[in-house]
């Protein structure tokens, strides 16, 4: 079994799992006033401080959520609503064409249901955004823009965006800037304050924490209208009983991943470079997608000309190799990746793509297994794809 899909989810770190189990054995609602509640609250607040400390934020800027999708929705919709409430003509959302669906669909929802105007920033062929295009957009429309949202690093092709430059442009125009850093934290250096962003999404299960817990880092001068109403937890922005065990394990994972980031990135990038080199040797026609330099250390993304990604996935799966086509499903049917299309790929190239992502448990044996299985899989997938040629 070679697990090459760490960008989908990565195994929990032993220390995070141990922290989870130990805390989950304890009773306690962090909102309760008695001793048991106080103990739970202490664990939550210590965790908040740990997360804030390693990510360059103040503890009061950390809002615990149910994960990346919730954090993205809270940032995009919540900041849109709050900014529009303050000034009704702020109805514009600026985003990028390569966002994760948690941002993409939240923005689309605002357009469909809240009358938002949307400006989608294009990328270059490597999937990278150009701060000059954001400057042009904001020079023309800054008064009407409620929020700018652009991811730190792309989940499919691994391209790392010039987030600090983008955030600086937004700051020049006084517009809040949110970034989805789900794929970035623990992989590349991420510092909330230094980056200049107003809001940042992070989630547990991409960096060795549990699934279903994450955070939105939200600058204190940025308001967000809540998605969830109830007990008023988390600065009244995110109601709901706090998941003490999840939050403790999340904080342990964030701290471990961020503190070990440099060493991790060097090791995993070397393994990834080896994978890329050997895939190119095995299948010389492959196209390597994404930015070759500004890139997540564990990400390798290819198009295999003449193949369909879903056929390759099936064949590699049968050989015990887990990878991803990176594309979303619409009604159970794989659609060509919007990221590849935004990068200028045609449908055939988009459909021929496969993502291999390495992580903290990856070994050279995983790469060996992939290289052993790949040539036969590509051969067969090519024969299958040839059948689709119009009769």
């Amino acid at each position, binding site marked *: 079994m070679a697990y090459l899909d760490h960008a989908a989810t990565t195994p929990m770190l032993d220390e995070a799992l141990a922290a989870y189990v130990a805390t989950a054995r304890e009773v306690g609602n962090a909102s309760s006033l008695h001793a048991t509640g106080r103990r739970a609250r202490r664990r939550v607040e210590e965790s908040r401080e740990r997360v804030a400390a390693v990510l360059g934020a103040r503890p009061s800027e950390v809002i615990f959520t149910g994960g990346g999708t919730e954090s993205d929705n809270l940032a995009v919709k919540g900041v849109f609503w709050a900014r529009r409430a303050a000034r009704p003509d702020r109805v514009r959302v600026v985003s990028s064409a390569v966002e994760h669906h948690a941002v993409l669909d939240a923005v689309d929802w605002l357009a469909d249901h809240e009358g938002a105007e949307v400006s989608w920033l294009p990328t270059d062929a490597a999937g990278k955004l150009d701060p000059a295009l954001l400057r042009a957009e904001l020079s023309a429309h800054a008064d009407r823009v409620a929020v700018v949202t652009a991811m730190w690093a792309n989940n499919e092709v691994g391209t790392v965006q010039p987030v600090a430059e983008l955030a600086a442009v937004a700051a020049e125009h006084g517009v809040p800037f949110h970034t989805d850093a789900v794929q970035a934290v623990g992989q590349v250096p991420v510092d909330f304050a230094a980056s200049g962003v107003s809001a940042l999404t992070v989630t547990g299960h991409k960096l060795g924490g549990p699934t279903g817990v994450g955070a939105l880092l939200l600058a204190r001068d940025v308001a967000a209208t809540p998605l969830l109403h109830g007990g008023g937890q988390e600065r009244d922005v995110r109601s709901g009983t706090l998941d003490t065990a999840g939050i403790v394990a999340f904080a342990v994972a964030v701290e471990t991943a961020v503190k070990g980031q440099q060493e991790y990135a060097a090791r995993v990038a070397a393994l990834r470079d080896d994978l890329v080199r050997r895939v190119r040797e095995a299948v010389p026609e492959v196209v390597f997608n994404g930015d070759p330099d500004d890139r997540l250390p564990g990400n390798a993304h290819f198009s295999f000309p003449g193949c369909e990604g879903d056929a390759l996935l099936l064949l590699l799966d049968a050989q015990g190799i887990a990878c991803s086509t990176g594309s979303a499903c619409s*009604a159970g049917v794989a659609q060509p990746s919007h990221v590849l299309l935004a990068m200028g790929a045609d449908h055939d190239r988009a459909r021929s793509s496969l993502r291999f992502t390495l992580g903290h448990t990856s070994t050279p044996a995983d790469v060996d297994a992939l290289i052993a299985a790949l040539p036969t899989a590509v051969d*067969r997938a090519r024969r*299958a794809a040839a059948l689709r040629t119009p009769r």
Partner: protein
Amino acid sequence: MKVLAAMSGGVDSAVAAARAVDAGHDVTGVHLALSRNPQTFRTGARGCCTLEDSRDARRAADVIGIPFYVWDMAERFHADVVDDFVAEYAAGRTPNPCLRCNEKIKFAAVLDRAVALGFDAVVTGHHARLGPDGLLRRSVDLAKDQSYVLAVLTRAQLDRAVFPLGDATKAEVRAEAARRDLAVAEKPDSHDICFIADGDTRGFLAGRLGETPGKVVDASTGAVVGSHTGAYAYTVGQRRGLHLDRPAPDGRPRYVLSITPKTNTVTVGPAEALEVSLVRATRPVWTGGDLPDTPIGCEVQLRAHGDVVPATVRVDGDGLTAELRRPVRGVAAGQAVVAYRPDPAGDVVLGSATITG
């Protein structure tokens, strides 16, 4: 063998996949997405090809413990089955889309892709027997027998087909599904045509072909006895829904005798005028032995779940004729004539052809 199990989300294909695993095959489950827009296909209890069916199939695959994928076959399905269905009706014939789907999709597009990917065969939940002798036989459950819609398969297609359910009745399949903890054990059977959401074939055709008003003519007198909004919506042998202006002089019911697309005319007449003793057909497929060079006595079936009649069948190049020992009513062009050899071990499919008249 490495086999691909086509899983519709129904009970039959789920049990078929499980039986293939028990038989020692290396099984991968695949659900075929056939609709361009799953929401337009039938939903609910009578469902087919919906998102719910896809999830049912996936859940069954998980319980059985096999890999599962969805294959998008919508484009091929529309070209080879739906468009063909509409074109056949427009030409005054009555197609059988299930048969076409087996011929062009399950045992062609899907099988070819499976073979290219390294699979040896396709497994389906059809109720028919296909043993080591390579002969296709009726299911033990005659009420559920699907050999008729499989009879169009060629030798090469049958050689790569596996039908694990032929020796089980539907009741046994359901009981087995329950024993295997498959949630689809009690799922109602699908009926009718999967791509016609509400079961309204006439409305579906009207939407595709438009309304073209024409005459309904009495065969014996030539008198115009009614009108219609499109001759394509009628089937030979049809009695209901003719909306004739006046009764026949003898007061007896009238039936559709023929459809003439060229003049957009529907011709009606008495039941006995429907009787046919000689059936002509085209594109014969023969899998029950060598292609016969002399006339052979056998039984023929002229539509799905239709009666079986003794006949003498001749195959001549691209044509096939069946002389029926007793006349049959309501033989529609576009349906298949399937020749069977009676056999105590299950009647054997000899061959089939598409009825032209």
